[in-house]
């Protein structure tokens, strides 16, 4: 079973690296990529039912070990990546057909880096200690950057560089925290509940201020990938430039790698007990709430659909971070559920935005009037995903936000315990205000609307992933009792 973890990383990595070597025709490339994605999916599915396992790959020095470890958290994020990547990938098979332009990368290059990114993601999910995770985090940045600059126009290169700088700069803050922890923590391996603040952690008491500051910096550093204020700037620049399937996984899955890194650092190395009630927790909570509000506000004012969705991601991922920073079980479950709910909804939304671009190059919100007459099924998927994102029962977005509000009220932190739910509500209203008008104007364009050709749906390759995702948001919500029960039990050791 152990060696399967290695295979899960190696299969997409090798197949991605070898794809350009084979020089196949387009059809061959698609079958190859699809097969690699499906094999990874099956392998990940098998691992979901495996028991906890650990595999040490090699040691650089005594403390710098690189090991893989499988636990419930790895399974959640691994399952997310394994499901999300094939869906967006199959969508890409149709979408990327027209993207290859003069000067852009070859389509093959896109699939190659797509698979390599998946490998890096699996690596992050399965990392057993901070060193391994840092390594895969950097790899993830480098390998996903070519997805953003696919078109190789000046703007896309600038956007990719911005993404790179935010991520690498953030990762360095994480590395600085790693240096400190390497000195003061007994080990860098992930242990539920962390090392500091527990019993027998006198060293952490002696250097309390230093450790608090470095914890804060490390968490803020990793939050660059998750798009939390003040390091959120790359998201709205990179997403509109990337091809739609790339933005979908970037926002739905790759940004979640930042959340995973924060969970690992906060709950598995530092320990929630060390930070609970400190100024660091207050700072982090305030930053995440600020991001929730600001992201929604910016999304509301934005006229470009993909940019609007990018700002929406900034806001929605910080919901999850808010839950995690509450440092109590309800908040944690809410955070994880929100990660899953947002991933399903946002991948769906970005893919529908891609469909609109694919048929008629409709990029601005104002172009989408009457789109429901042309692409009704696509717009239905869009609507279902929006409902989940806003948080209407019984969609998954509702359940996660319920837990988040509950966690905030239970936390007992003076102002934030009631201010948090209030801001979550305001942001939900804003979300409704920036998503629903698109649906309304799409289905009911008004009397002066000049009818275009009807029913030009994107074909099975584009529609089926959309439908699966839209139904997925619903199913996640309906069966959320199962998930929340699983999380509450599985993550009890963290607190």
């Amino acid at each position, binding site marked *: 079973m152990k060696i399967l973890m290695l295979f899960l990383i190696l299969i997409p990595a090798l197949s991605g690296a070898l794809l350009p070597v084979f020089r196949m025709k387009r059809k061959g490339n698609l079958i190859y990529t699809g097969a690699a994605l499906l094999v990874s999916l099956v392998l990940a599915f098998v691992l979901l039912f495996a028991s906890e396992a650990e595999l040490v790959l090699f040691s650089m020095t005594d403390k710098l070990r690189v090991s893989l470890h499988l636990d419930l958290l790895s399974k959640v994020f691994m399952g997310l990546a394994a499901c999300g990547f094939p869906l967006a990938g199959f969508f890409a098979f149709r979408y990327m057909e027209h993207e290859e332009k003069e000067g852009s990368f070859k389509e093959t290059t896109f699939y190659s880096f797509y698979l390599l990114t998946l490998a890096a993601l699996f690596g992050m999910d399965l990392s057993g200690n901070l060193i391994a995770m840092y390594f895969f985090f950097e790899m993830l940045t480098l390998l996903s950057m070519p997805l953003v600059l696919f078109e190789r126009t000046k703007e896309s*290169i600038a956007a990719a560089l911005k993404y790179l700088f935010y991520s690498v700069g953030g990762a*360095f803050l994480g590395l600085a925290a790693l240096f400190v922890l390497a000195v003061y923590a007994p080990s860098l391996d992930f242990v539920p509940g962390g090392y500091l603040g527990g019993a027998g952690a006198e060293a952490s008491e002696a250097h309390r201020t230093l450790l608090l500051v470095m914890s804060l910096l490390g968490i803020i550093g990793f939050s660059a990938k998750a798009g939390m204020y003040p390091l959120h700037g790359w998201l709205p620049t990179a997403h509109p430039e990337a091809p739609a399937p790339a933005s979908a996984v970037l926002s739905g899955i790759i940004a979640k790698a930042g959340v995973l890194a924060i969970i690992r650092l906060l709950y598995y190395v530092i320990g929630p007990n060390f930070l609970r009630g400190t100024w660091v927790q207050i700072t982090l909570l305030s930053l995440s709430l600020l991001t929730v509000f600001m992201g929604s506000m910016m999304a509301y004012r934005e006229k470009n659909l993909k940019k609007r969705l990018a700002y929406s991601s900034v806001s929605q991922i910080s919901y999850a971070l808010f839950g995690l920073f509450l440092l109590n079980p309800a908040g944690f479950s809410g955070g994880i559920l929100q990660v899953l709910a947002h991933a399903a909804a946002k991948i769906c939304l970005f893919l529908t935005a891609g469909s609109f671009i694919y048929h008629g190059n409709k990029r601005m919100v104002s172009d989408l009037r009457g789109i429901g007459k042309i692409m009704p099924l696509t717009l239905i998927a869009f609507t279902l995903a929006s409902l989940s994102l806003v948080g209407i029962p019984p969609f998954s977005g509702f359940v996660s936000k319920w837990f988040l509000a509950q966690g905030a009220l239970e936390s007992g932190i003076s102002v934030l315990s009631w201010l948090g739910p209030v801001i979550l509500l305001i942001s939900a209203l804003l979300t409704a205000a920036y998503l629903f008008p698109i649906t309304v104007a799409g289905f009911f364009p008004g009397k002066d609307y000049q009818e275009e050709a009807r029913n030009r749906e994107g074909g099975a390759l584009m529609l089926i992933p959309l439908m699966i995702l839209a139904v997925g948001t619903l199913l996640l919500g309906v069966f959320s009792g199962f998930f929340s029960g699983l999380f509450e039990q599985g993550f009890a050791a963290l607190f």
Partner: protein
Amino acid sequence: MSFCLNFPLFLLVGSLLSAVLSCALEKNAARILCMALTITSFAANLVIGIYTYRTGQNYTYLMGHYPHPWGNELRIGLTEALFSAAFSLILFLTLLGARKTLIQRVQQDKGRFYYCMCDLVQAALLALVYTNDLFTGYVFIEICTLSSCGILMIRENGKTILASVRYMIFSLIGSGLFLLGVIFLYGITGHLLMPNLRESIAGLSADGTYALPLLASMCLIVTGLSVKSGLFPFHIWMADTYGAAIPGSSGILSGLVSKGYSFLLIKIIFDVFGTDVFYASGIHNVVFALGGLGVIVGSVSAIRENNVLRMCAYSSAAQIGYIYMGLGLSPVLGMEAALFQILAHAFTKPALFLSAGYLTDSMGGAKKFRNLTGAAHVNPAAGAFFAFGAFSMIGLPLTMGFIVKYLFGAAAFESTHLKLIPTLLVLAVSTVLNTVYFARAILHFYTKNPNPDVYSKVRVREQKTYILSASVFAALNLFFGIFAKPLIDILAGALSVF
């Protein structure tokens, strides 16, 4: 086995002799002689290394069997063997990789002189590492300076001559300062051999006599050697020099020559001044500050540069800054980091310069980034090796660059809190800046496929030796990046018996 104790002498004499011999040989024969010399030196130093590892102590070699104060001594331990083996191997690989450019760029009748100079550099590097005598150190510093000027100006066009004259002026100022320092030390102690010097200096500093001359000589020696290796603000010669020279020469200069001086400085700090005296003098604080500034200033200058070779030169200035930062940080972990950085940079920079050189060659000699767009499509091997070198410079895990960052992080916590924050800040800023300029370079190389009618793809066949040398560089870098522990242990152990 104890016969191998004589190897250092043989190597020194052999290098000097083959330098003389090369002048009389054809270019090809001179090349073969030089390559054979470097690889022999690598092998011999490995044997010495194994011997000293087994015995676990340094040994002193009396040249001509005269005892001090008349004699001339070498002192070799595991560190010395390790570093001279590494330097020889790097010189071998750089010459191997630069072979094609050397054939193209250097006039046929000058080629043998190039290899003659390389022999001299080899001799000087070995002597700088082995020496147990300050004056021998000085002599070989001068040999090193002159031969590296020769390596630089082998192309004999206006730019390279100007650049090497500038380099020579800086270098001679450096060696002049060093000589002054040695004279002062001789004046107050009456010794030139390192163990005797150390003894007298410990005595002097305990008494408090000659405090000012001692401090002055320390300052002079440290300044002299740091001017020569290009510490900020004495790095200004680098960009012109490396930008104009052929890539192989830049690789040798930045990868080896400046490292030889840094190593000598570390040796002097341990064996002549003693760490207690040196770290009580406060000079290390200045060195630390200049090193940190060098890292930042070098990186910023690299960002502003639009010529790929000059960019690599500024990056060297930044990397040299790291060495001095480690040296100023703390006597144990800081030194360890500095020594590791010497090796890490020496394993990376020559390959980076060579790759940059091959990339510019494949685009018809263009050096500006805007004329180099798509170069990696024309020469995929050079593009890939450049990218790998850049990753190590940025400090991605699995490369030696990451271990360097980790060691600096660890050393920062050993030192005072006053230095902790600046060190971490410098590491952070330099990581981001490194990413900025290397990512920009790599993006330029990989964007846009160039017109296939103008630039024909470079085949593997045409650059076999380069690919071989660059892959060995990359493999070594990965190996020591992944299995860093043995190397760190050797360095740590060596520092304790230095």
